[in-house]
């Protein structure tokens, strides 16, 4: 009888050990980290929170993109890798213009102007003399450049930005974009404004855009001194073939209603980028108001695209949430 009892206890002990063993192998909690894969999350240092406003390339490989919170990103290999550069400011940076691999300028809100002579390793602030927002900058060469912004602000420099001359138009108009061609300069902005100068801003000629005062223009680009395009709010596209003396609006937009924030005239075509990830191509002759077609890129993005440029064979565009897109046509 006691043998049975002893056996019984051995069984119980084995049961307990067995249970412990089973338990050891049953519950394997997964150490998954929840990764969200989406095209909107940028690469490397560029995150979902980095809204990018403009991009410019010196050639096919060397490019810079800029955005909110003083962010500057640089690539040396045509966009495969981007790494951050130190702007030393917190301001929102709206526009970048490089004349070659070394010399570049950036403008931003509250009168920010930055300059580099070494491709962005070091960025220095330049004195704009204003606290108003600057929305676009463009340099013809290492010395001559323009910047436009809020409250009719237009600045011109002939010494590479060391000093800036105030060529503002004394009107309460926000100027959003400019286009340079030789001695011509066009600036566009709120209230359907288009202005033109040929004498470095001493005199400004107001041009008739033909649209109402409720339309703002966000981008302008000219292919030569006669043919040019301007784009703006809710799908507005106007073009000219006489240097802006007369402008004609594209009437049939195929129902396209998003704002277009930048326009690019290239030898591959005329492209616009804008709200809700829109990329459009304008396949018409300037001045005759023909329609355009909308391109939707393969990686469908819904972030607003703020700026575009051409580099080598590709067209680059950047926008909200760290979006950087590249396409060929």
């Amino acid at each position: 009888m006691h043998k049975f009892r002893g056996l019984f206890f051995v069984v119980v002990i084995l049961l307990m050990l067995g249970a412990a063993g089973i338990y050891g192998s049953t519950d394997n909690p997964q150490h998954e980290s929840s990764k969200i894969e989406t095209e909107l999350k940028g690469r490397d240092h560029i995150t979902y929170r980095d809204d990018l406003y403009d991009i410019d390339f010196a050639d096919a490989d060397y490019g810079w993109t800029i955005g909110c919170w003083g962010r500057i990103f640089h690539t040396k290999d045509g966009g495969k890798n981007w790494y951050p550069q130190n702007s030393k400011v917190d301001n929102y940076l709206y526009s970048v213009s490089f004349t070659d691999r070394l010399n570049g300028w950036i403008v931003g809100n509250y009168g920010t102007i930055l300059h580099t002579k070494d491709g962005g390793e070091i960025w220095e602030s330049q004195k704009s003399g204003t606290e108003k927002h600057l929305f676009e900058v463009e340099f013809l060469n290492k010395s001559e450049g323009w910047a436009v912004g809020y409250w009719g602000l237009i600045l011109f420099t002939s010494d590479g930005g060391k000093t800036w001359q105030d060529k503002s138009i004394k009107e309460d108009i926000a100027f959003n974009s400019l286009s340079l061609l030789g001695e011509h300069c066009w600036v566009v902005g709120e209230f359907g404004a288009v202005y033109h100068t040929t004498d470095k801003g001493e005199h400004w000629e107001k041009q008739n855009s033909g649209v109402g005062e409720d339309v703002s223009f966000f981008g302008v680009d000219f292919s030569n001194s006669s043919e040019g395009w301007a784009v703006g709010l809710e799908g507005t596209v106007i073009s000219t073939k006489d240097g802006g003396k007369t402008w004609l609006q594209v009437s049939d937009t195929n129902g396209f209603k998003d704002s277009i924030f930048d326009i690019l005239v290239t030898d591959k075509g005329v492209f616009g980028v804008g709200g809700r990830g829109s990329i459009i191509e304008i396949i018409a002759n300037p001045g005759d108001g023909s329609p355009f077609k909308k391109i939707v890129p393969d990686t469908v993005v819904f972030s607003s695209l703020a700026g575009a440029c051409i580099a080598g064979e590709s067209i680059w565009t950047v926008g909200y949430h760290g979006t950087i897109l590249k396409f060929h046509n």
Partner: protein
Amino acid sequence: MQKMKSDNSMQTNVNKPVVEDHAISRFIVSNRYLILIFISVITVFFAFQISKVEIKTELSDLLPQKHEYVKLHKKFRHIFGGANILYIDVFVKDGDIFNTDTLKKISYFTEETKFLPGVDRYKIFSITQSKVKDIKASKFGMEIKPLIPEIPETKEELDALRQKVYTNDMVYGSLVSLDSKAALISVQFQEDIALDYPVIFNKIKEISNTIRDENTDVAIAGDPMVRGYLYSYLGQTKVIFCVTLLAMVALMFIYTRSLQMVFMPVMSGILSAVWGLGFLGILGYALDPLALVVPLLITARTLSHSVQFNERVIEEYAVHRDIRAACYSSIKALFFPGLAGIITDAAGIAVLIAIPIPFLQKLGIISSFWALSTIFTVLFFNPVVLLLLPPFIKERKSEEGIYKKIATKTAMLNSGRGSWAVLGVTLLIAVIGVFYASELKVGDVNPGTPILWSDSAYNKDARILNKSFLGLNPMLIVVEGEEKDSVYKYDILHKIEAYQRHIEKLPSAGGSISIVDVLKKLNLNLNKGNAKWSFLPHSETDIAVLHYMFFSSSDPGDLDAYCTHDNRSMSISVYFKNHEGDTLREAVNATREFEKNNPIKGAKLKFAAGTVGILAAANEEIFKTQVQLLIMSFALTIFFCALSFRSLLAGILLVIPLAVSNYLIFAYMGLKGIGLNINTLPVATIAIGIGVDYGVYFLSRMREQFNGDEDILSSIHTAMNTTGKAICFTALTVGLGVVFWLLSDIKFQAEMGLLLTMATILHILGTLILLPALVLVIKPKFLSKG
């Protein structure tokens, strides 16, 4: 090798006169009727109090009330949001949620949640809720409208909605998943009342079933759901509980083969339970389902004390052949060791009161009282019952059973140089234990909830939710401005924005939101939707204008999540991907570091509220006190043991096996990924302290034998065969209890069951192998004292 003297020494005692007069023994034997009446009366009194006991969870008890995070949380939870949130994920397999059918289902679910008991109707967020807005720029200025005023029916309307969502930062990724296949409904519940979890649970399940179909499914997570599952498993828990108790009783019966000998421990267990639960009723505390493992452990201890006593009586009976004399000598031998053991146990449990978390304090109070009741329900009650209802004690032949063989071999381990080997091995194990004990983490170790199995319905749902949405575990930071219009001040808002960028760099942070995001969006839309305007204006006037524009087109309370009505305080919600202990620590440290490096007048970051905040608070409290707890536990144990043996050395010797077991248990928890949290801490604490009475019984038996002219080694043998047997038997009983808990749907109960078995086994081994080795090597003087 010395010849074992066992029965010989017993027989010589027969010729000696009956044992000397012992005060307590005399007291108990003489007053047995009085004692019986006294205990009965008290039991009846407590029995009546049991009806007041409810099984429920008081959430506020789980928070360290005095911790600054908890204080912050309680101050602002009504405005900015609390921590008792239910997350409902409605998702589709094919296509996306932008179709009339799915949107109608989301809307239906959202509306139904408003009727859940205890819900805070103003804190329900979903894309179909009117408080979720779409802000748009147009030629005419700014339009602020509900995102979904009516469920769209046509393709154009659906497409328009899709576009609206994609461009809305405050919805895309948080209320709608990035792949558009899932929509989130987050529902907040009140925190200062006890919720009716079973009702909420069943209602949610019912609504889910209504909207499920081949393409649509629902996943639900959040603390209310965890508790709902716990309550739904309550029936199963009760069954396991009963089966366990029955198994224990059955085991005892098989062992003693006497109903009466089984009856007494069971009676003692029941009496202690009545006293314990009655005390609970008097104090008005509730019984939390997660704390049910503790009573079982205490009951096992009660049974063990009873079994020890009965075994001794049987042994004495074999000598005296008279039940009265047998009881008398048993009491004399065991009363004080038993008392020491019980008080030390109770003290080891009572240390929980030192942790400033009400749940643990209440558990400490009730459990230590319950443990102390053993003094009456066993030490006094047991002999009284034996005297009044004398059992028929069968002759126990000295058995050459398996136990004796094992016992002999075990004792032999310590003979000769064996004891040094034992000490050496123990030291090695202890070092390994200490090393791996550093793996032990405070807080949760895995995502989801550790209370349920990782393949449980809840945790599966939690994983689905975490994949779809940026972050479901909010940490709330509050900026309490010093002046009334702080909400318009650029410096303060700029600091908030800087903090958001800083904290979002953490890999575990999914995103954050604050009033700054609202202002940026307003600014953007005020300026024709031009992306370049999505910044925080520098001037106070501009900011005030934006506020005005928002308020004039929105409903009251729409900005509640971001700032208070008096425009003084603002919130920053940071969403984390999980609530693991490491994540919380990282979050708090990053915030602390930022605040230290960026002190701005009138813009102090106060942290942390929300789910992450209060969990971090609980973890911090546990982390701070765990070392104190250990020291207190050991100190009290040493004290009481030293007192009962009148030797400090005795106290220290008894604590050594406990210390080694303690590290081994922590090592086990660390390796197994069992975090030290508010539920595991009491079990771990109690498990450590509660094994000392084995040692006390064993040592005092050894001392008895040693004073009766046996040498140390044979004292060990005798103690092993008598007390040791009872100890092993108790261990088996407790161990048997574990097996059934492993079948529980509640992983926490299985883990705790296993932890307790481990602790028990370790204590047994410590008592039967390590303790003798220590005694043999040190040859302490207290062994010779009477």
